[in-house]
């Protein structure tokens, strides 16, 4: 009996320890999240400058007059502006729960659907990293690479292909020396 209790206790201590370790690790990764400011189009933020004096129109429609350049190609069958942008506070976003989220923390909003990407991003595996491999890294927000309204990457022009090896490509003096400095 006593032995069984001892085993149970040991097991608990073991799992407890692991949880603590994981929590510490997550906390550490959270501390490291140093992100540049969100990539707003020039002169667009704060949104409340215009929206404060406008009535809220929740109907799905083709926008005219403003934001015409925004084409929603991001689960557009089911999404609309106010699913992410907050109607109450225009300078903020909100989660599905209604909890407001700043643009600086927009990854929490994206992570609601793309949980596995958020997890990889926090671990430094999804997305571009700059800085030190053993120290401070700078992260980018999801929106720095993916346009939130059209998140798929656009095709880009590749850099030139390498030259095919050929004798003609070499300068004329190649065959003279063998090991010159």
């Amino acid at each position, binding site marked *: 009996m006593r032995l069984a209790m001892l085993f149970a206790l040991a097991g608990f201590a073991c799992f407890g320890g692991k949880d603590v370790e994981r929590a510490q*690790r997550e906390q*550490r990764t959270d501390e490291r999240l140093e992100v540049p400011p969100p990539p707003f189009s020039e002169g667009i933020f704060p949104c409340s400058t215009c929206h404060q004096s406008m009535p809220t129109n929740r109907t799905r429609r083709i926008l005219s007059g403003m934001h015409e350049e925004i084409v929603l190609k991001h689960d557009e069958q089911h999404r609309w502006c106010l699913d992410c942008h907050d109607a109450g506070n225009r300078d903020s976003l909100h989660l599905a729960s209604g909890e407001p989220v700043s643009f600086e923390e927009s990854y929490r909003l994206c992570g609601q659907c793309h949980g596995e990407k958020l997890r*990889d991003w926090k*671990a*430094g*595996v*999804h*997305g*571009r*990293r*700059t*800085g*030190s*491999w*053993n*120290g401070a890294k700078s992260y980018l927000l999801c929106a720095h*690479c993916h346009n939130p309204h059209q998140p798929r*990457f656009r*095709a*880009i*022009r*590749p*850099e*030139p*292909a*390498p*030259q*095919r090896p050929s004798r003609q*490509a*070499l*300068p004329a*003096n*190649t065959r003279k*020396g*063998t*090991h*010159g*400095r």
Partner: protein
Amino acid sequence: MDAEKNAPKLTRRTFSSCAAAAAAGWLLTACGPRRLHEFPKERLRKSIAELERQYSERHGAKVTVSTASAQPGVEFAYALDLSRCIGCRRCVYACVKENNQSRNPQLHWIKVLSMEKEKGVDLAHADPYYQPAQVPEEGHFYVPVSCQQCRNAPCTKVCPTGATWTERDGIVVIDYDWCIGCRYCMAACPYGARHFNWTEPSVPEGELNTSTHYLGNRPRPKGVVEKCTFCIQRVRAGRYPACVEVCPVGARKFGNLLDKDSEIRYIIEHKRVFVLKKDLNTVPRFFYFYAT
């Protein structure tokens, strides 16, 4: 009878004098300075200063040559996400710039192979010369290949002069002053990752990266072999390699294998990881993975 008489006799005296000569010969060749870190400190400092002077003079800019050695408790590894790479070749040209590769004739340490999705990773039918208007192309994926920094590196074994070896942090390096240009290592490398300077490498004036490492991107002479060093001049100073930072899709990952919190360990533990030509038992430190 005569023949028996004339047969060479191995006397005790000839044996011991031959043995003594051999020992003396061995001592003479083995005791001289061999590798960078076996140099006496003072002599190293002097010869590095001399190198810096020569390079600065030749390229008209202040060139520094670092001799930073491996950090303890570090073994570098690299991982590349094939589900992200779009084949844009930004890494190729960032590498050329960072590592002072020759522009003419052109020399690239990274080769990006275009492959067909239907065939999978098939090196025999890969195309490094693809040039569409835009990438990624429909039905294609891309596999950038550079030095795989093998743990069981065939290239270092065949070098007749000991000019190439594996450092303690896992980087396979070349000492250009010891390389005689025999290109055995190029024949031994199954990844085509080593490149030969058939001519004096040319780097346009003002484009030389003046922050160099002795075993990495310092200006090379004609007639030596060179290859990727994980940007030794950057990583030994704690920075990411140039290709990692330039990749627009974040497909390139780098870190310390011995640090259990590193990105590289996360990838190996959580993703589908493979290496190229696994059957050759080269044991690369360069992993490919699919993040999705």
